[in-house]
């Protein structure tokens, strides 16, 4: 059962769209196609090549980190929470990975295990503070983020560690024309999709995000569900950190914060049609949202637009897109 099909129909007399078109995910991918087409026209008119193999692969490559974080963020947002600590967690993940590997092939598995264990611990901390201490998720994850940030700034002042050649292949190798990292993103996306749509935990996440009180009265152990969502999100951020480490070849204390993965990932999730208030949306839309941001970046880079100005356009696109979704959602109450 798809959560979108449960949406209440709008009032009589209003044109009822065919259910495929009413699905927000479809809208996201239509918008993605529109942006791509527009970009292709503009770039081609300027004499550039937009849909060349190189450029398309570049767009995929650039979507991986944000994609991994945003897929994780989707899970917490769906559950009615949010995670502002991911940016610092990504930084720490690159540092832990690079220091543990220390240039030796034999250390790769222990390093991955260490990063994942650390991520699970951070996710647990987030989830427990949110549920058991009843601290609003905004403040809780901001606080946990501050704790991580202090730890980073106290111990590191620049790039450290060394990632062995063999692990860097994750960041640079290709299967045919497609980068390996795109498969990593696909794998994580499918796994999270499976959890959300095909397991009891996933249904419970939608239920808790839709109305926590009702979910609890219906017998859902809401605390466990929220904690699980935070752990899943943190693990995705950890994977993003591992991938970044393989790209950079070392650990960087600014890996996660420079690109503002905390707020950007939330923006990508919402751009992908997931309700910020929770209970509605999904991973497929999020990937569409991430691709849309990457396509925009690519178009601007090809046109030589000032990078600062790109931020202005990003802001406008995010606001306009979400405003359009809200309009489509009809007269239902929208949370401020």
């Amino acid at each position, binding site marked *: 059962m798809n959560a979108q099909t449960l949406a209440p129909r709008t009032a009589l007399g209003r044109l009822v769209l065919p259910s495929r078109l009413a699905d927000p995910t479809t809208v996201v991918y239509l918008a993605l196609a529109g942006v791509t087409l527009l970009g292709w026209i503009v770039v081609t008119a300027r004499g550039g090549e937009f849909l060349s193999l190189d450029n398309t692969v570049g767009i995929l490559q650039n979507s991986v980190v944000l994609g991994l974080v945003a897929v994780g963020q989707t899970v917490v947002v769906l559950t009615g929470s949010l995670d502002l600590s991911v940016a610092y967690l990504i930084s720490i993940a690159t540092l832990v990975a690079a220091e543990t590997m220390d240039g030796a092939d034999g250390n790769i598995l222990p390093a991955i295990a260490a990063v994942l264990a650390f991520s699970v611990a951070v996710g647990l901390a987030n989830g427990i*503070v949110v549920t058991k*201490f*009843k*601290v*609003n998720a*905004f*403040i*809780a994850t*901001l*606080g*946990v*983020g*501050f*704790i991580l*940030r*202090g*730890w*980073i*700034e*106290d111990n590191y002042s620049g790039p450290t560690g060394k990632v062995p050649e063999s692990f860097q292949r994750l960041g640079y190798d290709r299967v045919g024309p497609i980068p390996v990292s795109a498969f990593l993103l696909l794998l994580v996306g499918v796994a999270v999709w499976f959890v959300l749509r095909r397991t009891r935990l996933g249904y419970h996440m939608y239920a808790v995000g839709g109305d926590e009180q009702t979910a609890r009265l219906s017998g859902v152990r809401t605390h466990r569900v929220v904690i699980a969502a935070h752990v899943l999100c943190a693990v995705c951020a950890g994977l993003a950190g591992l991938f970044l480490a393989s790209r950079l070849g070392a650990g960087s204390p600014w890996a996660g914060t420079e690109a503002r993965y905390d*707020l950007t990932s*939330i*923006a990508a999730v*919402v751009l992908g049609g997931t309700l*910020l*208030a929770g209970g509605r949306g999904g991973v497929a839309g999020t990937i569409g949202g991430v691709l849309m941001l990457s396509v925009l970046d690519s178009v601007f880079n090809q046109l030589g637009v*000032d990078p*600062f*100005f*790109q*931020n*202005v*356009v*990003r*802001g*406008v696109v*995010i*606001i306009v897109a*979400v*405003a359009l979704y*809200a*309009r489509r959602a009809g007269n239902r*109450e*929208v*949370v*401020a």
Partner: protein
Amino acid sequence: MKAATVTADERERGDVAVTGIGRLTPTRRFLASLRAGAPVYVLLAVLLVALGVEDPTFFEPDPFFAFLKRSAPLIVLAAGQYLVIVSGGYDLSVGALVTVGVVVTAETYHAFPGAHWTVVVALLVAGGAFVGLVNGLVTTVLRVPSFIATLGMTLILEGAVFYWTQGSPRGILPDDFRTIGRNTAFGPVPWAVVLCLVIGVVAVVLMRSDFGRTLIATGDNARAAGLAGVRVLRVRTLAFVLSGAAAAVAAILVGGFSGVSAQAGRGYEFEAITAVVLGGVALGGGSGSVVAAMAGALSLQTLFTLLNLRGVAKAMETTVQGVIVIAAVALGALDWAGTRRRLTAYVSPLVRHLPLPSRNPRGEQR
């Protein structure tokens, strides 16, 4: 209205609770409003005492007023942020707005060196209010969640200011403009402190007015408030406008004491929200007092100063800050939940505001 002639006994039983604190004596009203934010005053007192123990000279006029002057921008931002949060939203754009305010002022003086400071200040506040108006309209009319609307606005403002200045703003702020943020008004008291007091008084009066009551009612339950006749869109938009104007005032203060920088407002949005939450104001809206929110800002600044004094490594400061913020909010959620619920019921502003059918304590049939 029967409520005017209630006996002490009826008041005890809560029969007149629907009339709210409007009927209380000023002293009791003051105590009730203090109680609403009690944890933050305890926190502030503890931190100030700790600061006094750590540095006995701290409470001498000069260092103390210097401390208040440093705290002023965050206090002003917290007051503005409170209005948005209590009406059920977030304003993440205030940090970027402070940066933009400082940079635009410098560029304005670069282009018009002779501009009078009153004109510049008026333009700044009007600009801040305009950005707030856009935030408010996007949130209310276009129905974009305020988190996303103000996040988008942050990207737009920061992108625009860096695009314009390429990261290195030109121009300097003249002394007459910097007076408000830097100099003293009379004796050792800085202008910044006077300004904070004025804004505090205005905020309290505002929250006592119809606007303030409808604002809290909107944050508590927008639907119910709308059905009761509150112009929800207008009230919410106005909250954003005032928050934008407050950010412009904060920009004047920041520009005054620390000069021009493209990083001037970085991080202020999270600090302001943290301060408001420390003040016991619920995220999601509907409860909390503006004075407590401003006290939350002062607590946060006291905490920073204390960590500095204790020689905690600059970096570990953020860690301690994270722990303390979580702990304070968690304690607030645990110990005071019951108290706050009772108080909210007691002073529930929407109920107080409505023309209720007069109650009939003696049970007479009509």
